[in-house]
């Protein structure tokens, strides 16, 4: 039994099956892209108890009882795009699109841990996310734009004390998981 995007799901799969494969094949959640299967490319990132992890390296047997959130639930259908997605869309960053679900999850996690990153912070953070189309420049710009937009939402009080707060994201689910999140290693 696992919790995927807020719902309990019973999955019939050998325990060593990768979470990425279960999400895609058993649960039809194909927003999680399986590209390298080795944890290098970041296309299969999901949030596991609020932390971004490559689902291709996680055996499904280990996530029993844990909370899995995929790109499909980062901004559920009908809700407006999240700050990171909005910025990526507005800067016309998207090309083939295969890396963007993972990019979104990666950058969203980064901005929770570091709400005011520099361009170098973003580039360093993205060492685990491969994009073959865009040359990254707009992705980096978008991350900085999203960070600025989120700081704006949080208002002047937060900015005054400079403390990172994790109410940064707007969806109820974001607020639900408050564990400190680090960048993907």
């Amino acid at each position, binding site marked *: 039994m696992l919790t995927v995007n807020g719902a309990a799901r019973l999955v019939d799969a050998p325990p060593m099956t990768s979470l990425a494969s279960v999400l895609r094949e058993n649960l039809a959640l194909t927003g999680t892209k399986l590209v390298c299967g080795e944890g290098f490319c970041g296309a299969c990132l999901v949030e596991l108890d609020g932390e971004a992890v490559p689902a291709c390296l996680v055996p499904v047997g280990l996530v029993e009882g844990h909370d899995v959130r995929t790109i499909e639930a980062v901004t559920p259908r009908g809700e407006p795009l999240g700050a990171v*997605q909005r910025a990526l869309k507005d800067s016309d960053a998207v090309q083939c*699109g295969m890396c963007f679900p993972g990019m979104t999850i990666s950058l969203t996690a980064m901005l929770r841990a570091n709400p005011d990153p520099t361009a170098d912070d973003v580039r360093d953070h*993205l060492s685990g996310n491969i994009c073959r189309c865009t040359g990254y420049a707009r992705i980096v710009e978008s991350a900085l734009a999203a960070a600025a937009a989120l700081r704006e939402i949080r208002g002047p009080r937060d900015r005054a004390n400079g403390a990172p707060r994790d109410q940064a994201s707007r969806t109820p689910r974001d607020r639900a998981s408050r564990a400190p999140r680090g960048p993907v290693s």
Partner: protein
Amino acid sequence: MSTIGSDLPRRDAEDKLRGRTRFAVDRQRHGTLHAAIRRADRAAARIVRIDVTAARSMAGVHAVVSAADAPGRYGIGVADHPLFADGVIRYHGEPLVAVAAETLAQAEAAAAAVVVQTEPLPANLTMDQSLAEGAREIHPDWARYEELVEGGTRAGNIAWEATVVRGDTAAAFARDDVVVVENCFRAGRQNQAPLEPRACTAWLEHDRLVLESSTQNPWAVRNGTARLLGMRPSDVRVIVPPVGGGFGMKFEVSIEPIAAVLARTADRPVKLVLSRPEEMRLALFRENADIWLRSAVTRDGEIVAREAVVLMDCGAYGGEQPFLTTMTAHTLGGNYRLGAVRMISRAVYTNTAPTGAFRACNGTYNTFALERHTDDVCTAIGMDREEFRRRAVLRDGDIGATGQVFEGDVLGPMLDRMRELRGIEPRRPRPGELYGRATVVGTWFIFVGPAAATVNVNPDGTATLVTAGVEIGSGSTMQAIPQLVAESLGIHPRDVVVREADTDAAGFDLGVGGGRTTVSLGAASIAACDDAKAKIAKVAADLLEAAPEDIVIGPGAISVAGVPSRSITLAQVAAHAQTTTGPISGSGSFTGRGTPSMPGCAAGHMIDAIDIPVFAVHDCELAVDPDTGQVRVLAYRVVQDVGRAINPRAIRGQIQGGVVQGLGYALHETVTFDEAGQVAQSGFETYRVPLAGDTVPVDIALFEGAPSLGPLGVKGAGEIPILNVAAAVACAVAEATGRQVDQIPLTPPWVLTLLDGTDQLRHRHITRDWRANVLTPPELLEAAAGIRPCPIPR
């Protein structure tokens, strides 16, 4: 407001960001079987026995197929490629047997259980080995293969040879007022590495075959699969979901016939997806190439003669390379004014995985070689590099290698634009680093080829665009072409519905690649709109009580000329048409006009002259760390000839992406073979694609106004950004280190080797007497070219 030239957003971005886009790899039909391929584990061998008895009887297995199930061969120039190895193994990883089973694990287990017994043959892993005296022929039956295109010269391990002979090169080299410069160059393979692997689901429907595939070229997949399966081409339907990157790798038929044979045998849908290790080892790599250039140049910077030999490693089968040999004439011969020229471009068989198209095919390494050679020419005659280029680049009315006449002054003004973009102050390296900078030019040619389009005008005021155009990420199909259609019909781009490519719905198209998509499909779409507009005008004339020739189809309204108040909407016209003339639709098509070349100058070329030249000027500043050999790009600038920018922001995105892909090619993307002939890089750990930390934001200037036969003067913009990058980086590293940079990629160990001092590259398999390299007797080529004198272009 015109939509042309505005930075409109992508219609497909939001779905891609939300993870809702379903690529071919994400789609699944009810009852689908999964496929796995048993591959050769030697580079060259005779097949003694393949026994599939055990595999057939394993749990979940529905079909096991091999060479006997799909006889016949395919290719572009020559039909040399069987679907499965047929008695002989020619590369490590060649498909031997394919299995379809209920689960992927079952298919993989059965594929592994196939008994394969082989007898090794000596493998030619390099072109040097394949061209050596007495080398084993990889295709002993080469002379009996069917030629699909006439005019190619080939023999033994030379799969195809294309030559250019214009003017009396020998006489020019003998002049006593010239300096002769000669260089050898070598470029490695590059993996396209799109993030979506090759993926295809095949099934039968009413005795027809349906293929849902990740391809850039649905019509090529349709025709290639039909040929191999012995079917009528119209009985194969190809549908293409959004493609998760292609970069040329998905331009030809590849895994689709394997899925098709399995589906036909199992009578169930079969899905075949290549694994990442398969993709890394068996991508249709950009070919490695060996190049020799020799030029005779006056002290004033006039290139009186040039000779070139370009060897392209096609791997075990010719594939697209016979076609790509054509490109040398244009990528090496379309930049500078050349008095006389002779060139050979050869595709050479080796016992390695086949190579093929990759963004700016052939152009990346030829531009690298040409620009490094050009810098050596400048040194030899003592002329400033920029000054030389300014004098020597093609101007209005100059001719290219095959005698094609160029229109307009383009590269010269682009060099001026680059000077403005560059500014004066150079970037600073860190203490101890070596600084280098280079400005280089490059030329690409768009082969426009045929395209068809249909536009249906809907009663709600929208239009549905039906073409075989595939969205591979470049934005041509989902961004630029709908903008052209919207502009033509006077509606908003969001009101243009784009039908996914389907060969049952759309007419022929040559495929998404080469920079032709926006040009050819764009032109066909505009022609379809014109056809529809003639019908719209008639219906509107009826409604507005005016003459059809007085009807103006403008943005948001259709009115009578001179009387804007008498107007109706497109929706009203389309609705009225339903009940009077019948629904409105338009069809349109387009193909190249056929640019003339000099008769007799080119032999073995599938295209002697190409319709749309595209130019680029790149500038790179970099720093080399002499202790580590690491090259750090400090600044990168691009001036690109775009004809007319439909969506400038989208073009800038293409340029940034293409430049970074080029930096990977120039600096670290490395393909090597182990002693068994297997590609050593099986994933992203060992095959280093650029990461965010490797990149710099590119400074970009779009150069508009150069002549183009594209719609509204447009030129393809996505292909060319990668063209000059290796040239710019290599020339800058040469300046920084003072060494002869004649090989790419410039990995840190190689840069350290250069700094330590190493011998200049010499190709043993290229003879320094140009005439001794060619298969056809050179006297015949010279006679055909009318030497001397060469005929004047008509």
